[in-house]
């Protein structure tokens, strides 16, 4: 820097960087490395830590509960992802036009996004109440009665999926709105001259040009949904009969209910690897689009 001694510069670098760096190393890098180390031990927080090599990982591979949690997470994703994408895109398309009360609708769709998962989960738990819930009341109009949503092994996951889709539509919508605004209007004007109808315009212009956004939103939602937890913990705690025991619920149970820190850490590393692979795919694909 102009007119500054080396010593002075070093002082300022330290002042600006060190507080953050120390915290970064203490609360992010150190936990990250120790989590890997702990995953090779059988630590229970009380007795001394014992190195067990890759035993935890071997045990995980044979652990039916873990694979069930994996499968439940996949079930969640298969149900959640297409729905949230379709509804999110539909809302974005509608609100990208100059409709009446646009600002109001945008705010309404975004409201669940800013609300905490705990609040949302409690409201939906009440909506799904088998005796006095609004959902069963509406279903009774079409002759479906007495569904025991959160206590029924086959309905608990759909209930969690419905809740999650409702909460996240606004988030997906905002990302799609961003993508839609990047499409030049000249394409649509040209299509108008050719006399294309709106369905054709959507199919031949909007959707193809929206591909990078769609891919990006898919990846983000996918990563988020591998980490699904709050709504599960509040609505079912992984039940009934383990039917909604997802990966993070399983990690939470093993770490903070059974205090199997080593085993739970190994699980969290499997989760990390899955997310890492998804991220790698994203980076690869993004490069292709950037060129």
């Amino acid at each position: 820097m102009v007119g500054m001694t080396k010593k002075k510069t070093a002082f300022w670098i330290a002042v600006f960087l060190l507080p953050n760096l120390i915290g970064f190393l203490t609360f992010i890098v150190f936990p990250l490395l120790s989590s890997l180390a702990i995953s090779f031990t059988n630590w229970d927080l009380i007795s001394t830590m014992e190195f067990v090599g890759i035993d935890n990982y071997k045990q995980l591979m044979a652990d039916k509960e873990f694979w069930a949690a994996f499968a439940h997470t996949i079930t969640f994703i298969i149900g959640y992802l297409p729905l949230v994408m379709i509804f999110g895109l539909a809302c974005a398309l509608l609100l990208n036009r100059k409709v009446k009360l646009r600002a109001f609708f945008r705010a309404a769709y975004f409201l669940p996004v800013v609300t905490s998962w705990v609040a949302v989960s409690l409201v939906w738990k009440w909506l799904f109440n088998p005796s006095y819930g609004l959902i069963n009341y509406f279903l009774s109009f079409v002759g479906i009665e007495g569904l025991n949503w959160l206590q029924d092994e086959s309905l608990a996951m759909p209930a969690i999926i419905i809740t999650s889709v409702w909460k996240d539509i606004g988030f997906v919508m905002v990302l799609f709105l961003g993508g839609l605004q990047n499409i030049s209007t000249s394409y649509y004007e040209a299509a108008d001259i050719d006399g294309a109808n709106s369905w054709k315009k959507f199919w031949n212009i909007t959707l193809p040009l929206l591909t990078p956004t769609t891919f990006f939103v898919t990846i983000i939602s996918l990563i988020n949904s591998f980490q699904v937890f709050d709504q599960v913990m509040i609505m079912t705690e992984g039940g009934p009969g383990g039917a909604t025991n997802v990966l993070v619920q399983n990690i939470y149970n093993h770490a903070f209910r059974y205090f199997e820190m080593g085993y739970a850490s190994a699980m969290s590393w499997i989760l990390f690897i899955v997310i890492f692979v998804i991220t790698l795919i994203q980076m690869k694909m993004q490069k292709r689009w950037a060129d």
Partner: protein
Amino acid sequence: MLLPFLWMISTSLKNQGATMVFPPQFIPDHATFQNYKDVTEAFPMLHFLGNSLLVAVLTTLGQLLLCSMAAYAFARMQFWGRDKLFLLYLATMMVPAQVTMIPQFILMKNFGWLDTYQALIVPGLFSVFGTFLLRQAFLSIPKELEEAAFMDGANHFSIFWRVIMPLSKPTLATLGIFSFMQSWNNYLWPLIVINDKSFATLPLGLSLLQGRWETNWNMMMAGVVISVLPILAVYLFAQKYFIQGMTMSGMKE
């Protein structure tokens, strides 16, 4: 989309008998604020509200300061290993929170911080995402501005505080709102580090409410309304920054 919210408000105004009526009533016969009174008197809802405010405000302010200072160093200063260090920061962004949460909990335990405000605040201060976001913003500010100031004898601190920070207000606002919301809505971390109810934040408090009054849905919904109103107010006030924050958090890679 709004129906669940309307149903929440409607339930919060009912007496317990009215919640157990089928078919359900949308507009209660005898609307009452009694539930709000009960849930704040018989249950420390307002105390949780205070905890949430304290934690969210301190986390947000601390994060803004720490992130912007490091971002200034990364964007505006030359030092050995700077780019490699920043790459290390970036690399940790794809690590899911569940990986670091177990060792972080053990750290809190060893510090003797379980059931303290420090546990709720301190680990949340160091946001890699925030550092990244502010670095990007600082990089876009022309170099000439600070060179002129240096000529006039300004030091790094006054450049940072008088030139860089004021020019980055929109990004700071976005990050601030975003980290406030994250802190306000965080459930998993308080669930892990807080056992003593007196340190519970609103999301944790609500889950305790659930354990206590499983069937008093009118009381529960009053509690939920109390937890939603503040963030809703902030949202309506700063909608633009909320949406920017959410969009950018999605684009953090």
